[in-house]
């Protein structure tokens, strides 16, 4: 009988939610023993559950500590799959690394295991790999490809520097992870030699063959710009000023200073890749996260407006912030509509 994978994923989520390492690893191993392909265990049980963990954190159902515990257990489970099924390498060498500052190691770890299952000799360098360390590794070990993971779009400038550095020493780069955009647009913009949306697609892409040497590119990618440089340099002052202004304005129920920092980071990343949707998507997402924590979207509207006022010498940033304000206002309006709807339709609610 073929095990029911969605049911297994639910059971798995329950176990990692309790940080039950033995239970979760036991489940994973028994699925393998029952004949579930290791790739399915990695991608349809573990990865699926991890994305669900994200949703539970977003909606404030799981505190951050529970999310961390669950992820740690998943790391063990991924390692257990690798220890259980590991075909001898029959293809070339790949090194998998996360961009500098990128701490989402698990997605890249899963990619590493999938590549190993497909016969690649894959090494995983872990989270947040500093450029000099990666390049030293490339010289020493001479892999055929670097698979570079980036989950947070805010790490794109650093990912770009790494892509260029790998290519400069003659190793092509396969980019992947949510940070490069759902359609991989930032991977292309930043000059990666290839991009893959998922771990299995990454294996297919490698199998179809990458050039042995990055192709010569004409001219530099059009990224960054004067305002980007200015914002990167003055990020700290900017965030402090916005925080101070918000404090003076007696913001109702404010978010954290951290939230202001993230807003600045996504603004900077959007400026880097010249794409407003990177910023507005984040604004919409963060409004949802804050709402779940009883911080109204008006806080985001206000915070973005203060950013815009402070940045009066940066027309491009201001335009982005205006789009952000509009996105946050939409969230706020949607919320009010829903409230009105709930009020009208739930006569018995307390």
């Amino acid at each position, binding site marked *: 009988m073929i095990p029911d994978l969605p049911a297994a994923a639910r059971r798995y989520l329950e176990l990692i939610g309790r*940080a039950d390492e*033995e239970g979760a690893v036991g489940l994973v191993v028994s699925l393998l023993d029952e004949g579930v392909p290791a790739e399915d265990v990695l991608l349809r049980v573990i990865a699926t559950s991890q994305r669900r963990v994200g949703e539970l954190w977003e909606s404030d159902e799981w505190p951050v*500590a529970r999310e*961390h515990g669950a992820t*740690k257990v998943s790391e063990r489970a991924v390692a257990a799959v690798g220890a259980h099924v590991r075909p001898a390498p029959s293809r070339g060498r790949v090194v998998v690394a996360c961009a500098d500052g990128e701490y989402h190691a698990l997605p890249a770890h899963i990619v590493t295991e999938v590549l190993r299952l497909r016969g690649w000799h894959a090494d995983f360098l872990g989270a947040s790999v500093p*450029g000099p*360390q990666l390049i030293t590794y490339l010289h020493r070990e*001479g892999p055929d490809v670097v698979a570079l993971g980036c989950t947070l779009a805010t790490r794109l400038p650093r990912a770009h520097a790494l892509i260029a550095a790998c290519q400069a020493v003659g190793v092509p780069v396969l980019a992947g992870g949510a940070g490069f955009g759902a359609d991989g647009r930032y991977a292309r913009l930043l000059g990666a030699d290839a991009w893959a949306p998922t771990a299995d697609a990454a294996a297919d892409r490698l199998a179809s063959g990458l050039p042995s040497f990055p192709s010569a590119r004409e001219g530099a990618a059009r990224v960054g710009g004067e305002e980007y440089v200015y914002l990167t340099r003055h990020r700290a*002052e900017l965030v402090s000023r916005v925080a101070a202004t918000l404090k003076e304005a007696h913001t109702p129920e404010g978010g954290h*200073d951290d939230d202001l920092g993230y807003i600045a980071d996504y603004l900077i990343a959007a400026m880097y890749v010249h794409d407003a949707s990177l910023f507005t998507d984040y604004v919409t997402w963060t409004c949802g996260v804050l709402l779940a924590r009883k911080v109204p979207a008006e806080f985001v509207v206000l915070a973005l407006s203060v950013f815009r006022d402070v940045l009066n010498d940066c027309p491009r940033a201001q335009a982005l912030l205006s789009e952000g304000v509009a996105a946050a206002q939409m969230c706020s309006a949607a919320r009010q509509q829903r409230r009105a709807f709930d009020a009208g339709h739930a006569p018995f609610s307390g």
Partner: protein
Amino acid sequence: MKWATGSADPCHRAVSPGLMAALLEHSREGVVVCDADGVVTLANPAAVRLAPRLEPGLPLPAPLDSVLSAPEARVVTHDGRQIQVRAEELGEGRIAWYLTAETSRRTEFLLEAARRLAASLNPHRCARAAAELGTRFLCDAAVVFLPPASGRRIEWIRVVPGRSGPDEGAVPAAAAAEVPGLTDALAGLREDVAGRQDPGGTPDWLLPEGFGPVGHLLVLPLPGNSVSAGALVLARRAGRPSFDEDDQGMAYDLATRAGAAISAACLFRDQSTVNGILTGDLLPPDLPEIEGMRLAGRLRASQQAGAIGGDFYDVYLPESGPVERPPLVILGDVCGKGARAAVLAGQVRHSLRTLLLMESRPERLLELLNRSLLASPSPHSYVTLILAALRTAPGGHVQVDLAVAGHPPPLVLRRDGTVEEVAVRGSLLGALQKISLWPATVDLAPGETCLLYSDGITEAFGGPSGREMFGEERLRRALASCAVMPVDALVERLEQLSTDWLRGGQQDDRALLAVRAGRGASR
């Protein structure tokens, strides 16, 4: 084509003969027209520049006349110059030839060789690049032999277009000797400047099955840093033209450049191997499994390429011997950064290992270490250190006997999420003849954690303003938020919060080591 008017027969209205002549005059592309008899009726200046023997009224010179009309251009050599030629039938037997200068193969080769061979410091990648350049510009199969690293076997990398990737292997010197001229080439000797060898002598193993008979063979030494950097073998199938003078010149260039690249790469490889051996002991150890508790540690060196620095931790499991003692963990910080600090840190770890053969009392160990540091010939051998002996106690408890020398005292995370600083103090090592110590013992109930850290964590400057210190208070709060996490998640989270705080700014070495009582999950 676009015309200014929508006329059905635009040519006659838009382009007068005068204009047509001017257009041809200034075109960068050479244009030649012949009549049905193959006599040139028109050749614009660009065409004459490219092919000086073109003369209106005379037949089209060879080898242009050999180009038949086709959509693809062909490259021909005319007076030693490479020209791209495309022919087009114009009707009534007339034919037009369009000529452009072919960027010389040699120029292209030099550019490509520079780009590819300068990139890597890895001998295999360089060898592969050289073989790929060979097949792209010169031959049907290229094999690079690398100088034997460890004595006996000689590694080779072979590229044959149409195969999925390069093939690699290694042969004993005796087999290498079967390839004509290879032994000499590997020794840096050349019989023939061009490196021509008898293709009949090629052994079967040199080329993939189905390659077919070899018609032409070049075997060249790769000149290195006064010693050989290997050899390059280039083969063309039987029936292909032989390597002409141009080809031989390019092969020579390729070998020279590849030799320089490979020898630099070998130098780097040798140095980094030595470096790896020397620094191997300086890296943090893998943390062992210890019954009744769990350990997790993280170390980040400020020097990112070397991954070593002045912060260190280590674990000393009990050994059979005269001294009976529980497992011991240490975490410390040597004054300074980088390799120099790492060497001293390594000495401290090693000294402790030796001292532990005779002594187990933490205070005594620190006193002995202090004396050995004072006796050290290098100045400023200051070290801060925590020693923690880990004793299991009934009920899944762990008793931690702490001695601290000039180091921030550890923090304890209790089951209810409160964080305490352990009241334990002591003086820095390596500065004063006499040190004072106030040791302490902490009891950890199952699930409770004792965290050792270095000041690189608390003294990290960054944060929203970029100028704020992370501080102990923030570390305590961060630790408190980790109450229910597995201990390795806890350490990872603290490291990530610290890295986020730094925001890529200037950093010190940072070390974290946590001991959690009890096994497995915390809840």
